[in-house]
């Protein structure tokens, strides 16, 4: 199969085109700029629409309208822009519309910087906007996986009529890697009889709404949403294991930090230290099974490594409920975790186990 060299941000765009997405609404922000640049050229080639909105607030509401009209639609931004979209994402979640939101995370809080970060984990997996809602959150760790997971994101969005977030960081967005494109996947978009297309002969009107003035009604909506989220938790957990089955120290890391952690695992294994990696691919629903399974096996300690002050750490601790010690190593502000730093932490844990 032919391999092409592709930048991560462009891969998000090409993944969307392969998924049948023909509508993109966004607002410029670094470090995700190559994604809109790519789609501004690419979408017109396939009869699609690229539209630059006046703000992230407008962009997410254009997404709301396009999704309501039945389209496969995407927007992308980076941390501060994603903050601005949160109100809209909450509306989209309550109105049960499918769409894909890409966050190429940068250093925060505030204006922060444009360096790579994973500091939006809480925002992505714990809701982000107001009210009780959840989004499936996918975290690719290579340019190839970007291409593949963006297609998955659209399928999940349609399957659950829910917004889906795909998170990367500045490194994933900016780096180039060879990818196998292959023939475009067969896109099967489910029928959308609920879409506001104009009645066009349909007997009843369609209404897209998130207003339920009677608390009894709104509670019913919430219970329906919650049962949908439980179904996601049953069916959609994804993760990768690397030398995890016989490991005594398991690193838990997602996205680019997992790539760094793999190098640490390889180095430790060469030194005869049984280290493994569990890489959550879905951050929500969080893949707790491999952690729980590991804790009943040879694993003596876990190390969570992130480019933040310890956010996924909370989910790892919740999954393990104190069964094993959970250590943490993180850098913040757009600083990368280096192989040497993570290795140092692993060695410290390993020495402590003796």
């Amino acid at each position, binding site marked *: 199969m032919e391999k092409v060299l592709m930048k991560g941000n462009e891969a998000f765009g090409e993944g969307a085109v392969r998924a049948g997405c023909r*509508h993109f*609404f966004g607002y410029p922000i670094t470090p995700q700029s190559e994604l809109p640049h790519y789609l501004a050229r690419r979408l017109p080639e396939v009869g699609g*629409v690229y*539209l630059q*909105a*006046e*703000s992230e*607030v*407008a*962009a997410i*509401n*254009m*997404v*709301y*309208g*396009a*999704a*309501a*009209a*039945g*389209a496969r*639609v995407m927007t992308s931004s980076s941390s501060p822009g994603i903050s601005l979209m949160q*109100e*809209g994402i909450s*509306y989209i979640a309550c*109105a049960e519309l499918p769409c894909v939101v890409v966050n190429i995370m940068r250093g925060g809080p505030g204006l922060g910087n444009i360096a790579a970060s994973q500091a939006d984990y809480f925002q992505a997996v714990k809701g982000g906007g107001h009210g009780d809602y959840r989004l499936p959150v996918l975290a690719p760790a290579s340019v190839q996986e970007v291409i593949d997971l963006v297609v998955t994101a659209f399928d999940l969005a349609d399957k659950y009529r829910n917004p889906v977030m795909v998170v990367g960081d500045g490194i994933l967005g900016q780096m180039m890697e060879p990818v196998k494109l292959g023939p475009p996947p067969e896109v099967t978009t489910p029928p959308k009889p609920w879409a*506001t*297309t*104009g*009645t*066009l*002969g349909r007997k009843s*009107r*369609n*209404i*897209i*709404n*998130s*207003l339920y003035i009677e608390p009894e009604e709104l509670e019913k909506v919430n219970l329906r949403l919650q049962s949908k989220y439980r179904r996601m938790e049953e069916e959609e957990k994804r993760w990768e294991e690397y030398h995890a089955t016989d490991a005594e120290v398991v690193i838990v890391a997602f996205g680019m930090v997992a790539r760094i952690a793999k190098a640490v695992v390889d180095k430790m294994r060469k030194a005869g230290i049984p280290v493994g990696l569990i890489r959550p691919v879905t951050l929500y629903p969080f893949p707790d099974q491999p952690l729980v399974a590991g804790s009943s096996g040879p694993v003596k300690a876990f190390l969570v490594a992130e480019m933040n002050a310890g956010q996924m750490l909370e989910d790892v601790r919740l999954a393990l409920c104190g069964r094993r010690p959970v250590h943490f190593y993180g850098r913040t502000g757009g600083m990368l975790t280096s192989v040497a730093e993570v290795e140092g932490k692993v060695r410290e844990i390993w020495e402590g186990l003796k």
Partner: protein
Amino acid sequence: MAVATRRTQGLTDKQLHYCPGCTHGIIHRLVAEAIEELGVLEKTVGVCPVGCAVFAYEYFNCDMIEAAHGRAPAVATGVKRVLPESVVFTYQGDGDLAAIGTAETVHVASRGEKITTVFVNNAVYGMTGGQMAPTTLLGQKTTTTPFGRQADVAGFPLRVAELVATIEGAAYITRVAVNTPKNILRAKKAILKAFNVQIQGLGFSLVEVLSTCPTNWGLSPPEALRWLKEKMIPAYPLGEFKAPEGGV
């Protein structure tokens, strides 16, 4: 027996929730009649605001979307870009359109988005309890300008039709009122024209409609109609601010 008049098919049977003397009901009917008369009810998608017209999706007899506060033009843009053959309108009040949604209002016009906006200006926030709107008149008392709106504290009334008419993508911009039968007929013609501008693909169209709010103005319905005539129309002159050359 010949049918002299009948209820428009553009409205559902749902009883309106608006206060006695409020002219939202008239404006709803005019919009609904226009859509029906143009024969586009089945391909129309309406977008309603946050504010008094928040429940408008229960009244307009077509596919409807309820948008976040101020974002109806962005939502309408999303719909229209997916379904260019559809007829898309937004129905928004002065807080929604001229305060929190000002950016969306300006840019939907600048893109020349082929949608129609019905802008109901009653110089006050109704749903939230009579607070100052961007269109509140100088000296007008509201719950947040209890001594009357003073320019040095709260700025000046915003003239939306005049503002939007300066934008190149705006094709048809007009201001009407619904305080007299004559003005109501004129308003109907303007709304029909605005939808025609959209259907002909000429660009963005906006009809600003001066409307009453007896409840928050603290006036009886007849007094409110007089107040609209004597106070609002002088501050917000009626007429076309922009129209396609050569007519519609």
